[in-house]
């Protein structure tokens, strides 16, 4: 009898376990994602879904929670709800939002709207671009075209396939260039360099510190210095070819002339000793403590380092990256975090409406106040001025002084094990820190460019 009871109990345990596994909606895997249907809803609910009424719509907004915080998103969501009766904006903010939305999308529960930092490491945006899984937002961007700073929309960052359509929208607009201690420069009667010759001449005046440092182990920070140098020295057309992996650009005299300047940074010891082995925080801290005169970075640096110790009397100064000749076009890298609507969004139209709202006067003011940032709209320098330090404010006015925004990135590639952007800046970094000559760097990059050119996502 006891044996029968034991067997019965054990049997119940097993059956209960299987029942536990089976009672829930089937776990969605990549294989059955397509066929998974939510059977829990009544036919009445399904009918409502087919003809959604605006009052029932909930917009799922997934945003990166970084240095700009989430307060802005909460505020702007409230403002949008106030303008659109019956609409609920559900904000999910997370420093690891890239990973979270990856899981959501794989579980067939895509957010309607996404904001991710351009420095996001999850690779989610890149995956979505490769999969062509981002909705076309050209209609919204076309409406805003005249309000945008010239040159902002037509670039490979927002239009990754070069098909004339816009898929990603620009959000936080920052200028990237060379930051310096303005007080130190003024006290020592030094002016920020305009040309590379000016840059190297500074070595006669600045003897108590290196000219420059950067986050050696994260050479992507060199973008602020390297991209404008190429665009101004070799020309914008050459630059555009370079980011599409045209191998002939590497062999051009103009490109070599710029690489020579980078080589000279190492040979003249203009680079701070030890730069190759430090991260962004350390390099920024060393700069603030007066170990280096300049650092390539974005306008977020002042906020990021606001509590870090610094040399006495430190004040922020900002200059564009040096050019080869004084009359060259001058560029400033304009960094923009990206916003987009995944193709799998169930509320695309509402998401587009929300996107458009983010560029309204009301939303821009909220953004400047709560996040100390602005979108790339004309005249935003005046909006942000009251909320940021002088140099950061001034970095937004460069575009009114003849500097051109440089908004571009290497074209997305498929079927490659190497990441061309990582290889490019890593190699240029080695030239700047003196572990590779310009010839070695060019020879290293050539086969990578050739392979990348064949594998551009179209």
């Amino acid at each position, binding site marked *: 009898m006891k044996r029968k009871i034991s*067997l019965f109990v*054990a049997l119940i345990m097993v059956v209960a376990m299987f029942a536990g596994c089976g009672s829930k909606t089937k776990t969605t895997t990549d294989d059955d*994602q397509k066929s998974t249907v939510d059977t829990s809803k009544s036919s009445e609910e399904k009918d409502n879904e087919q003809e959604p009424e605006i009052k029932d719509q909930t917009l799922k907004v997934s945003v990166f929670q970084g240095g700009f915080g989430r307060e802005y998103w909460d505020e702007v969501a409230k403002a949008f709800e106030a303008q659109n009766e019956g609409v609920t904006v559900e904000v999910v903010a997370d420093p690891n939002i890239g990973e979270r939305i990856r899981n959501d999308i794989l579980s067939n529960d895509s957010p309607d709207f996404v904001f991710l930092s351009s420095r996001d*490491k999850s690779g989610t945006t*890149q995956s979505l671009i490769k*999969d062509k899984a981002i909705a076309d937002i050209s209609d919204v961007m076309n409406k805003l075209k005249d309000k945008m700073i010239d040159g902002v929309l037509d670039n490979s960052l927002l239009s990754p396939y070069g098909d004339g359509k816009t898929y990603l929208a620009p959000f936080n607009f920052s200028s990237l260039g060379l930051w310096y201690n303005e007080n130190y420069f003024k006290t020592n009667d030094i002016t920020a360099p305009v040309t590379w010759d000016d840059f190297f001449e500074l070595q006669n005046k600045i003897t108590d510190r290196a000219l420059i440092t950067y986050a050696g182990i994260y050479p992507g920070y060199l973008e602020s210095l390297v991209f404008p140098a190429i665009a101004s020295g070799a020309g914008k057309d050459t630059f555009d070819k370079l980011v599409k992996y045209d191998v002939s650009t590497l062999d051009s005299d103009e490109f070599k002339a710029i690489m020579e300047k980078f080589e000279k940074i190492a040979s003249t010891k203009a680079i701070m000793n030890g730069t190759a082995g*430090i991260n962004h925080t*350390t390099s920024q801290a060393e700069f603030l403590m007066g170990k280096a005169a300049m650092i390539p970075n974005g306008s977020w640096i002042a906020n990021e380092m606001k509590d870090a110790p610094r040399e006495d009397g430190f004040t922020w100064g900002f200059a564009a990256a040096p050019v080869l000749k004084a009359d060259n076009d001058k560029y400033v890298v304009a960094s923009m975090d990206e916003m987009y609507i995944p193709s799998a969004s169930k509320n695309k139209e509402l998401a587009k409406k929300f996107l458009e709202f983010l560029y309204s006067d009301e939303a821009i003011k909220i953004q400047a106040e709560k996040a100390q940032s602005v979108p790339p709209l004309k005249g935003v320098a005046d909006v942000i001025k009251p909320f940021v330090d002088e140099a950061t404010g001034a970095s937004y006015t460069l575009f009114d002084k003849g500097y051109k925004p440089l908004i571009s990135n290497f074209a997305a590639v498929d079927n490659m*094990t190497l990441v061309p952007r990582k290889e490019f800046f890593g190699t240029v970094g*080695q030239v700047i820190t003196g572990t590779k000559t310009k010839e070695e760097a060019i020879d290293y990059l050539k086969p990578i460019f050739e392979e990348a050119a064949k594998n551009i996502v179209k």
Partner: protein
Amino acid sequence: MSTVKKGIVKKSKISSSKGFFLAVCVAPAFVLYLILGVYPAIKVFINSLYKWSGLSPTKTFIGLDNFKTLLHDQKFALAFKNTVFLMIVTTIVTMVIALFFASTLSRSKFKEKNLYRVLFFFPNVLSIVVIGILFTYIYEPNRGLLNAALNLIGLSGKTWLGDSKTVLWAISGAMIWQAVGYYMVMYMAGMDSISPSFYEVADLEGASKFKQFFLITIPMLWEIIRVTIVFFIISSLNMSFLFVTVMTGGAPNGGSEVLLSYMYSQAFTNSNFGYAMAVAVVVFLFAFTLAIISRKLTEKENDNY
């Protein structure tokens, strides 16, 4: 005769029903293991045969192409080489230092023995991320503790994490510091169980401490050493990933990339999940093979004592 037969029948019935009962009891755990352990592992093998970005529901079957690409991938080869380097260096140094300290402390008579045990174990309480950051500061070229110490004795400092010649040594330093205390405590526990009479006899016979260590301690501890070596080799695969991610991010220019960080960057930076899964398969086979080899190499008759 019939009684015997009846007895056999009865006994076999009891044992079969007992076996059935045990099987039924074990079944839930076994099924969970299949679902949570075996199934994901099989999925990794299957996904390694596809070209897949990691997000798209559509995957393209490419057979063994990912593995063929791996064969010619120089970055993968470098990551493999770096992983093996870290494994060998950290395993040997950690085991030697842990054994040395364990032996010194367990055979010494001073009262602070337990305090040292706690102090040495302390790094294990810290998160690997914290240790990684801590060592980043120690290796910092201008203000770091290591270069400052070297300068004090008249040696010039180095860019430890920025130079491909030193970066792996620097990472292994952090890995060893983190692991030594844990293995030392394990060895001390093993040494405490060795009867003092062995050492007393050895003392009487005039054996030196050095001889006692190699002829008594090591053989008596061999089973623990075997297990810890296998354990350390496998765990160093994971540890190296964490340390590299925190300390260098693979810098300089991929010079410190290890197998798992390479897998991670292929999956998440390069959106190349199928390929990353192929790397994962190789890592699995590599770890599995290493575990077998290291067990075989350390196999030794232990019944002399």
